[in-house]
């Protein structure tokens, strides 16, 4: 025997990595098998994937539900983008009251659950200002509510984008005789918007999902969007399959959008135009 005991055969780095990886896969497989054996497949099938029920929600789930969801999202995003840009410029203004207002707005709307804002817009505003009617009825109110919430987030994103444009750009523009406002419009904002396209795309995904909150504005049957439509259909039929159909509709939009956002971001990281 030598002085020190024969050490257990040491694993090479590659062997150890294989062992760890194997263990991780093993745990995953055990978990899946366990879940699968515990689930009641018959019940799952009849409640979530009943073809007969799925067929009944078409085409209305698309022509009413998805259509409204898209309408709410697009109008809300448009309004939010414009408001967000204005708020971002106010945040960067040299006039202190503008800065204070923008900051207060952003803090309030980012600090509250969107749900609360929708309930407030749906019940509070008609009570406080009876007779006020936004153009487009519920569609108008929805655009304002969604726009108001998303503007707060977009404002901060756009502000960061504006500040990411190198200082020399403003100096070059001013040197050519452009006023501050002209330089902002022609030189700084176009570049800032390019910088913030990826985060704004992510914001669009969030808004697409948040559009389901319009149900708190008090909507009619024709104004139902995807989530509400599916929920109604599900309770009507006593079957959850419509929820799954709606979920697939959401994912069909959000996954490509998220993918697009990631690709745009990657492209920008590579420093292309």
């Amino acid at each position, binding site marked *: 025997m030598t002085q020190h005991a024969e050490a257990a055969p040491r694993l090479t780095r590659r062997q150890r990595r294989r062992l760890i990886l194997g263990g991780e896969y093993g745990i995953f497989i055990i978990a899946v098998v366990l879940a699968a054996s515990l689930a009641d497949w018959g019940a799952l099938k009849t409640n979530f994937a009943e073809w007969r029920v799925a067929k009944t929600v078409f085409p209305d789930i698309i022509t009413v539900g998805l259509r409204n969801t898209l309408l709410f999202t697009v109008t809300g995003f448009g309004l939010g983008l414009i408001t967000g840009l204005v708020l971002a410029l106010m945040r960067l203004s040299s006039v202190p009251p503008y800065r204070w207002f923008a900051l207060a707005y952003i803090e309030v709307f980012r600090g509250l659950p969107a749900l609360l804002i929708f309930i407030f817009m749906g019940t509070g505003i008609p009570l406080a200002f009876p007779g006020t009617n936004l153009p487009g009825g519920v569609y108008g109110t929805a655009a304002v509510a969604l726009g108001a919430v998303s503007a707060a987030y977009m404002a901060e994103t756009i502000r960061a984008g504006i500040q990411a444009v190198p200082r020399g750009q403003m*100096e070059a*523009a001013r040197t050519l*005789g*452009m006023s501050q406002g002209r330089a902002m419009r*022609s030189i700084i904002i176009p570049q800032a918007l*390019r910088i913030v396209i990826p985060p704004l795309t992510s914001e669009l995904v969030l808004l697409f999902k948040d559009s389901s909150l319009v149900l708190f504005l008090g909507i009619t049957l024709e104004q139902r969007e995807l989530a509400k439509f599916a929920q109604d259909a599900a309770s009507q039929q006593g079957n959850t399959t419509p929820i799954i159909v709606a979920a697939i509709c959401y994912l069909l939009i959000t996954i490509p959008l998220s993918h697009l956002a990631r690709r745009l971001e990657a492209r920008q990281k590579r420093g292309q135009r």
Partner: protein
Amino acid sequence: MTTVNDSAAVQVIELYKAFGDLEVLRGIDFEVRRGEVVCVIGPSGSGKSTLLRCVNLLEEPTEGNVYVGGVELTDPDVDIDAARRRIGMVFQQFNLFPHLSVLANVTIAQRKVLRRPAVEADRIARENLARVGLADKVDAYPAQLSGGQQQRVAIARALAMGPEVMLFDEPTSALDPELVGDVLGVMRKLALDGMTMLVVTHEMSFAREVADRVVFMDGGVIVEEGPPSKVIGDPAHERTRRFLSRVLDPAAAEIED
């Protein structure tokens, strides 16, 4: 007390500039006559860029007056945008607008500021791009150009506004050595065409050949000024000599503490 000289293209009187407690310019007096090329040289941190940026009020002087073409820029009621149109500026980092094509870089201020019609702006842009040797690059984007080409576009962009004076802040310092010559060539031609130029540079051979006058700055003051043969060839001050020996033969410079 210096008096206002209406025939000067640029006149700087008793100029002071401080950033907080840091006094960067400490009483600068000088002028650039029409058609004159003045090179400003001096060690890093001596205030050369600050001086240039005070001439078109990118920096606001703490004290003193700046006149360009007889108009006082330091007058609080001056239309600064109108005044800046007559002063072209070229930066060390080019500062081209990356979202615009070369042509649009040169036309945008003509269109938005001078309100020139598109056709005219286009023609003037092409003329000036030809002048800097880049007529074939009108459709390129800044990112597709070399540093030397970008800097020449920046010169064309400034020239398209028809300035009375051109300011250059180390226009070749960010360039690879083999690209410096193209830019200096354009500037030399500009000088021959009679443009009034105020150039901060470390290119001593350019200063020696092209400048009518050289200004040596150190510590926020003008130490000496005169024709290049005098200031560069036979400097009167020890500080100028020390600076020149460092610039002309960097390898031989002694380390200071």
